[in-house]
């Protein structure tokens, strides 16, 4: 029994034109393994094959060659889909339905019994903060609201594996933070999360491991901390030190083997500043 959440072997996708001539090679020989319970980031510039990878994993596209397994099942197996939640890149949702109806529809596709379905829908709409707008058709939703309802439909079946394609695109920093908190929550519940994004800050904050794709080829894969840590640089964070003391420490370090690269005040990120200001104004 395969214990990994996702495994691919030589996954390749070549898009062909109408005459079945080779036109674009979207993904070439991808081999990745994602363990259960981790948050895995799939990074790359636009058109690098992230979405193609996700579609191949979900069986929305058929690979030109290679194979993939999700939760131990082949990804073309229908059974595995009941354990997967998927948030597409854009919210490919039916605009003529309202929030309740769309969750009900997707819930029915998973064969969730009516009573449980209704209670889950109530909880999800509440969790993603759309309770006041639950009867409004999706055509009147803002982009952020569409992302939220998209996320709600992705987890209606309480999946073991959640695949999120650009979950925070088009969201304001507060909503984006909320979604990131939600993703960390998934991890706490023991779910595996695959996160496709080109918003690097998001990925750095929450992913355990990442893979970087470019032009359909895997460039690098590994633990985020290990990939980012500069092993030969040491950082001290000190509070309330006078200017004289700083000079003294600097001369002390220079008298030993170290080189001082910079002595600055750390900056908080713009995101943190924004969040504090908004929270204060409430």
């Amino acid at each position: 029994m395969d214990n990994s959440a996702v495994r691919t072997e030589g996954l390749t996708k070549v898009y062909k034109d109408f005459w079945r001539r080779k036109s674009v090679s979207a993904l070439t020989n991808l081999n990745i393994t994602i363990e259960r319970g981790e948050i895995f980031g799939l990074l790359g510039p636009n058109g690098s094959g992230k979405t193609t990878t996700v579609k191949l994993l979900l069986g929305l596209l058929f690979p030109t060659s290679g194979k993939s397994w999700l939760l131990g099942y082949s990804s073309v197996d229908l059974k595995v889909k009941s354990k997967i939640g998927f948030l597409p890149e854009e919210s490919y949702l039916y605009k003529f339905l309202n929030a309740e109806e769309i969750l009900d529809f997707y819930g029915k596709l998973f064969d969730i019994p009516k009573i449980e379905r209704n209670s889950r829908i109530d909880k999800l709409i509440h969790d993603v903060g759309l309770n006041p707008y639950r009867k409004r058709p999706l055509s009147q939703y803002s982009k952020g609201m569409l992302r939220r309802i998209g996320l709600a439909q992705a987890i209606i079946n309480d999946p073991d594996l959640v695949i999120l394609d650009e979950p925070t695109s088009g969201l304001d920093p507060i909503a984006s933070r909320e979604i990131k908190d939600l993703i960390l929550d998934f991890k706490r519940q023991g779910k595996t999360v695959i996160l496709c994004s080109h918003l690097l800050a998001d990925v750095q904050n929450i992913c355990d491991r990442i893979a970087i794709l470019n032009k359909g080829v895997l460039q690098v894969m590994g633990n985020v901390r290990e990939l980012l840590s500069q092993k030969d640089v040491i950082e001290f964070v000190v509070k309330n030190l006078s200017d004289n003391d700083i000079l003294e420490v600097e001369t002390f370090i220079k008298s030993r083997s170290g080189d001082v690269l910079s002595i600055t005040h750390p900056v908080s990120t713009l995101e943190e500043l924004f969040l504090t200001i908004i929270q204060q104004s409430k």
Partner: protein
Amino acid sequence: MILTIAGHTFREVIRKKILHVLIGLGVLIIIVSPFIPTTDEPDARVKMMLVVFFQVVVLLCIVGIVFLSATSLPHEIEDRTIYGILSKPVSRLKIVAGKITGFALLSALVLVILGLVNIVAIQRVSSKLPEGYRGILKARNEFTASRFSIQGKSHHVREGIVWIEGGRTGIALWSFSDLYKKLDNKSSFEVEFNLKIDMLARVNAKPQFYQQR
């Protein structure tokens, strides 16, 4: 599962404006149809309405629904809303079957609505017909052979056939509910007509009957 998708398809089209236009147009044609100029025969108007309904309104619905259903799936693929369903545990075959069921239900609904409107319209027009012509709408009643009878005054006789007043040439489909098969012959029924004709006016010729086997 198929029913879920069918219901969804149904709801999708109901909320699109095209269907409203289609039904509106159908109703409009039915309402206008009594005013189409016809011959002087009292029931010609009703006949015209029937022709308009079966040949214009029904055809319109067929074309409209074929158009809607043929564009439905390609439109979903273009919109990529299909990914939402495909990523759920539903096979592609069931999606197509669901779509077909949905549109079948939809066309049934449209026909029922327009049919009811048509029945009301025709009833209104035919209620103003003179007494003898009302029967035009009753041609498809079911008869039991044991209770089969025709009533009417004889009108004239030609080539040995008695013509009954108010009767006209035409094709009638009689379906009898109480016929039974003979055991030894599987492909034909034996029908025995026991006709009794009460003639109110004197007729010189003998009525001619056909017994069919």
